[in-house]
């Protein structure tokens, strides 16, 4: 029988990756993500997987893209400074539509910042860190169990949509140890990349209605060219405006058009509340506790907790904000997600940012105080 255990967030991420079928890890040590590398170095040699410690984060993401082309589900883990270094090749993976997962355990920045303290400062970097118009999937779990399950989701999304997926842990979730029990009924099905159909002509970047071309592994016989240059359906460089435009539109639309499926969230008293909190990652736990405390006082507060950070389901968020006295977004940055919520919310709803950037977690009391203030 499987029993509950005390497990760390980073460890749950490592276990989740294995459960997702990932067999390749390349990384460079960086606090507070290092436990993931340590776990993979211990687990993979015993589980038919490959672990390699590269010379830097650029090499790490390069290696996982190569591994993914060769057929492995591959991932890396890093934190702020390393995430910054990876940006160019995140764009490469988006451009070439190679499935990879990048775990970013967020720490306070910019630059070296506070290596051991938490932050949610990479929310916009995850969206727009690499240059050019691209779409991206980013997820933010709020517990150790959810870290395990959403690591599997991350690989599933990467494989299904042929895209880099960023799993945004924050230092608190990455380092938190708590009760962990995954039962079979909690497990998402495992999704693998769509392979070309035997007997049919293989066109590497075919623009079909589904928007997601089939992806053969190197070695399976469908030899093709992978390039970060803008390419035509055959995979070769093209600067023809109509080809460029349809390609860029496709790699954006394949994610944005599916935002309803990809955007996942939990709601608590969302519809009937006066004040709505929107919070993600570790801070959603402070928000939920604040909500519970306030409701005990008779203050009607609700919580929307996005598990998917990108793409946004703008309609869903807009509807959730509708008619509220205020929408409050507590987050460990200077309002990176609040800005997005403000964009989605109706004009007559005040969207209030509760930012914190001192390296300490937002306490429930801080949220409670602000709710009381906006209701005055």
């Amino acid at each position, binding site marked *: 029988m499987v*029993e509950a255990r*005390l497990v760390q967030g980073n460890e749950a991420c490592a276990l989740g990756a294995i459960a997702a079928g990932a067999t390749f890890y390349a990384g460079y040590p960086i606090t507070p993500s290092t436990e993931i590398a340590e776990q993979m170095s211990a687990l993979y040699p015993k589980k038919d997987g490959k672990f390699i410690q590269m010379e830097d984060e650029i090499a790490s993401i390069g290696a996982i893209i190569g591994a993914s082309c060769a057929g492995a589900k591959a991932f890396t883990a890093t934190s702020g400074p390393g995430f910054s270094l990876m940006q160019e090749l995140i764009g490469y993976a988006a451009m070439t539509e190679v499935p990879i997962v990048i775990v970013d355990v967020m720490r306070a920045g910019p630059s070296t910042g506070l290596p051991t303290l938490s932050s949610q400062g990479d929310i916009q970097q995850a969206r727009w860190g690499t240059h050019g118009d691209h779409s991206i999937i980013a997820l933010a779990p709020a517990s150790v169990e959810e870290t395990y399950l959403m690591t599997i989701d991350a690989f599933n999304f990467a494989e299904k949509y042929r895209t880099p997926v960023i799993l945004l842990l924050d230092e*608190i979730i990455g*380092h*938190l*140890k*708590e009760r962990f029990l995954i039962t079979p009924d909690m497990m998402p099905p495992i999704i693998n990349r769509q392979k070309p159909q035997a007997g049919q002509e293989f066109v590497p970047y075919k623009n079909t209605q589904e928007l997601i071309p089939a992806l053969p592994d190197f070695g399976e016989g469908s030899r093709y060219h992978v390039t970060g240059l803008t390419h035509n359906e055959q995979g070769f460089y093209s600067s023809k405006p109509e080809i460029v435009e349809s390609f860029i539109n496709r790699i954006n639309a394949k994610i944005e058009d599916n935002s309803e499926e990809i955007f996942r969230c939990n709601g608590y008293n969302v519809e009937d509340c006066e004040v709505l909190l929107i919070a993600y990652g570790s801070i959603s*736990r402070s928000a939920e506790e604040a909500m519970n405390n306030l409701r005990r006082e008779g203050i009607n507060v609700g919580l929307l907790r996005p598990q998917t950070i990108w793409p946004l389901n703008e309609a869903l968020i807009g509807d959730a904000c509708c008619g509220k006295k205020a929408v409050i977004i507590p987050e460990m940055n200077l309002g990176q997600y609040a800005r997005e919520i403000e964009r989605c919310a109706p004009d007559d709803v005040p969207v209030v940012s509760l930012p914190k950037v001192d390296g300490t977690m937002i*306490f429930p009391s801080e949220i409670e105080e602000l709710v009381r203030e906006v209701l005055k």
Partner: protein
Amino acid sequence: MAEKYSIRLGGTGGQGIIKGAMVLAEAAIIDGKNATQTQVYGPESRGGATKAEVNISNERILFPLVSSPNIVLCLSIGAWQTFTKDMPPGSTLILDSSLENGPALPEGVTVYRFPMIKMAYEDLGNILSTNIVAVGVLNGLMKLVSSDAAERSIAIGFKKTFVDGNIKAYELGYQAAREYLQAAK
């Protein structure tokens, strides 16, 4: 037990504070409760005052850190100086008997003193067991987890060769606390 216990273990880097907190949290989970365990990271965890914290509850634990501790246990003067300021009235402080001249304590705090370092060093001949003696004392006084769960947690948390020694350390601390409470009755 009350709905939520928030415990802080403080000491000097190298005293096994984090391991002690993990043993306690894992034991609570074995008992079917929820627990979270967090700690200070960085250079200060090797020397200097360091802390590890545990929340135990029958309910889901949302805010995972300790904001207002019910119980603080200190194995060093640095920890006493640093980690007792926010103790609320009605909370419990467990100090190692060797510690003297610490700061004044917040009002309404119950204080216990046990020679945990000495017990590990003299009775067990292994100063490295101090953390688990401390877990035994803490649990003997506060009854946070079942002793059965504590011992199973030790068996999970340590390499085979160290399990028996640490179970002994736990029992030593636990008995000392129980005897103290009996005598005080």
